[in-house]
Structures are given as C-alpha cells and as structure tokens.
C-alpha cells in the first residue's frame, strides 16, 4: 500500500511538490478572479512562469 501510494505521488507530483502546490493556488486565484469583472486569463501563465523559475532556482544555487 505504501509503495502504491509512493508510485502515485511520484507519478503526479514528481521531484518538487512545491510546483503542484503552486499550481493549485494559481487555479484558486484564477477561479476567484474569474467571478469578478477583472480579466483572469493572465494569472495562470504568469503563475506557471513564477513557479517554474522558483523551482529551477532551488536546484541552480
């Protein structure tokens, strides 16, 4: 069971769990903004760029 859970964790989350958390937070912010009159299409591309750069920087120190 533990190995089964580890497989799915590696399969979905991968090397850096912060990336998955960042994406979930970005989805939440996008969904919130989409309920207002402010355009929300720009949130996810910028959030992805930020999350990717932070994850890369953690390795490239």
């Amino acid at each position, binding site marked *: 069971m533990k190995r089964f859970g580890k497989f799915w964790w590696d399969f979905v989350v991968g090397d850096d769990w912060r*990336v998955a958390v960042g994406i979930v937070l970005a989805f939440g912010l996008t969904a919130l903004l989409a309920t207002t009159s402010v355009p929300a299409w720009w949130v996810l591309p910028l959030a992805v760029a930020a999350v990717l750069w932070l994850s890369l920087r953690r390795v*490239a120190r």
Partner: protein
Amino acid sequence: MGLTRGWRSTLVGTGAATLALAAIVAALGPALTVIPIEVLRLVVGGLLLVFGLQWLRKAILRASGWRAVRDEDAVFARERAEAANAPRVERAGLDWYAFTISFKGVLLEGLEVAFIVLTFGSTQGSIPLAAVGAGAAVVLVVLAGIVVREPLSRVPENTLAFAVGVMLTTFGIFWGAEGAGVDWPGGDASLPGVLGFVALISLGFVTALRRRRKLAIA
C-alpha cells in the same frame, strides 16, 4: 530484456500489460465523457500542468548544464548488466524477472500516454480521433526507426523532452484556465500565444541558468 533474459517471458509480460492498459482505457474512456466539461478541463489542465512542468523542469536543467544529460548507451549497458545478473526465478513457467520488468515498464509508460490521449480526446470531444492520432504517431516512430536505423543515443532526447514539456504545459494552462472559469481573449486563437509564451520563458530560463552555471564554475 528480450536480449538478456529471452523473448518468451518478455513478450508475455508486454502482452499482459497491453491487455491491462486496454482494460483501463475501455473503463476510463466512457467514464470521462459523463464528467461536466468544466470540471474535466480543470482536472485535466492541472494534471497536464504538473506532468508538463516536470518534463520542462528536467529538460531546462539538462539544457543549461545543471543536470547531466542522459547517456543512453550507458543506461542501456547498465540495465543490460543488471538484467543479466538478476537471479532466475520460475513462476507459471515464466522467467518472473523478465515478465515483471516488461509488464511494469509497458504499463507505467503506457499509462502516461493513455492518460494524455484520453484527456486530449475527451476535452476536445473526440476520443476516437485522439486514438487515431496516437496510433499514427506509433506507426511514424516505428517507420522512422526502421528508415533511420540509428541507435537510440542519436535521438536528441532532451530536445524532444523540452518540446513535449512546452506542449503539455501550454495545454495545461489553456484548459486549466478555462476549467477555472476564464474566457481567453480570442478563444482557441489564443492557444498559439500561450504556446509562444511558454516556449519563450523556457528558452529564457535556459539562457539565465547557463549564465548562472558559468558563474558558479568560474
């Protein structure tokens, strides 16, 4: 596996995994079509994003020198030696090592491909068309392998991984945002714009990390 442990158990393992994959696809395909499209796009977008960013992150780190580029010849030699040295255990008349390694390899890699094909098909409303596209890709790759007859090490693996990462991330952003309630300016026409943005920032990150690498070495 076939070269080192024999073809019979290897092919049985491959066949069993293919059957298991077919069963999973047959069960999941129809189930996906009953999920509301917004929910499906949000979940699919999220999963494509985490997969895509995993691919892209590794490809950028390799392209900028922060992670070693995979040496396919060395990987092949190491895995061949491991397979040759593994003890032989017979179960159900099969070399169990050859069977399980082949089964796991085909099932796990196949699951990722099946997931991508199913989700692309369901979010665009045509699983059969996505399956035809996947089948055409398999035929093309096999034909290219026969025509080129070059070893796997000649394939620019990291360039392919980079391109796959950019594509998955782009579709993940596009569908994920739509699932979260976003209306893209220009609708589907904005997809090339998202693709260009992801490709540009990724190439920019490669350049920036190469500079960092040079400074770190100097």
